[in-house]
């Protein structure tokens, strides 16, 4: 069971089951724990090759044991997401921990990834269980419905779930070209039905400079 010890520390109570967590993110534990690196994120040879090729690398470890284990990473805020058979799209750098039973994989994101400075691929998590996602500052969850599409700054995007189509939107005008842009030249537009997680901070992106 995942629970938040504070907004920045994730506590996982374990009774012999396993969780996957970002390599080296354990800060403390009581009881008996064993840590093992999952080569290729536990996705087998195919997953390993895909991750190498796509640059969406993530080093995960498997934690198994009895007791309580605490995870934290660079004082990032932690958000708990419960999946019930649906799929979560998240940047591998924002993924802190998942239940052992969830499957992870990679997917193509198109231009959005490039504008975020994260590469063209992103990580997916699916199955039944809990996921801990990190954000720089507390993340807000924004609902997207067919009537209300949402545009997000690529640098502030953290994760999304649900039946969403994403497109790339650019507001480049002649002002941007002469260096007088508003700093918001690109957005990701989400349409459909689902949830988008946005952080109150922006990563360095190409879009942020123009």
């Amino acid at each position, binding site marked *: 069971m995942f629970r938040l010890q504070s907004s920045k520390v994730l506590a996982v109570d374990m009774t012999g089951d396993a969780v996957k967590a970002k390599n080296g993110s354990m800060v403390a534990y009581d009881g008996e724990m064993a840590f093992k690196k999952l080569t290729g994120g536990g996705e087998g040879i195919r997953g390993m090759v895909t991750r190498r090729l796509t640059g969406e690398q993530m080093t995960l470890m498997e934690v198994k044991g009895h007791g309580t284990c605490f995870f934290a990473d660079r*004082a990032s805020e932690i958000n708990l997401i419960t999946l019930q058979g649906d799929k979560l799209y998240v940047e591998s750098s924002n993924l802190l921990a998942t239940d052992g039973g969830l499957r992870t994989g990679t997917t193509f994101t198109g231009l959005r990834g490039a504008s975020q400075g994260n590469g063209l691929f992103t990580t997916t998590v699916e199955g039944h269980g809990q996921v801990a996602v990190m954000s720089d500052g507390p993340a807000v969850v924004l609902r997207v419905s067919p009537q209300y599409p949402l545009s997000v700054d690529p640098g502030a995007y953290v994760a999304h779930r649900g039946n969403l189509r994403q497109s790339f939107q650019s507001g480049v005008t002649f002002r941007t070209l002469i260096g007088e842009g508003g700093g918001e030249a690109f957005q990701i537009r989400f349409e459909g039905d689902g949830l988008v997680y946005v952080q109150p901070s922006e990563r360095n992106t190409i879009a942020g400079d123009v």
Partner: protein
Amino acid sequence: MGFREINSKMIEATVAPGQKLFSQRGAMLAYKGEVSFTPNVMGGQGGVMSMIGRRVANEDTPLMTVEGNGTVLFGHGGHHIEVINLSGDTLYVEADRLLAFEGTLRQSTVFLGSQGGVMGMVRGQVSGQGLFTTSLTGHGAVAVMAHGGVIELPITPGRPVHVDPQAYVAHHGDVRNKLSTALGWRDMVGRGSGEAFQLELSGSGAVYVQASEEKL
């Protein structure tokens, strides 16, 4: 007296005549009233021998003495501050994490090698803390800095707590520490889980852990 938390990154201390306060040099943000700040050449309490001890031990974070009548605000580097109140027991903390403490507390430098022999020394090296640490004993309040806030984990006999050396902040109580290793062949070939070394704390007391693996 004591320290009052204004927000997670600032504390307010009240100084009254005859009551001293020690703080890290340069950590004062603002003050009200008549307060004087004197750099402390000794780097803390306890005369010349302790000063030499701290120099040798590399635990000589520049301190200043705060005296007078008024209130002082402290903060440093945007780090989260945790106020720990001691009632007769001893707190072990790294000198550079110490923001301020009351003059009623006795400060000294502890050789970690004496706690656990050779492994104690290895522990100090691995956790990047050196072989010495600072201890504070008595009744009073201590303000400790940490990156990203701290959680307090109780340690009870028979239930040791393992802590990542980089996330360790401080501990108090009757606690023995030792370095436990989980080095396997995987670590040798560079396939480690990043959790090869842990501090094992056992006994009774509490350990403070920060939400980050960054040193200050």
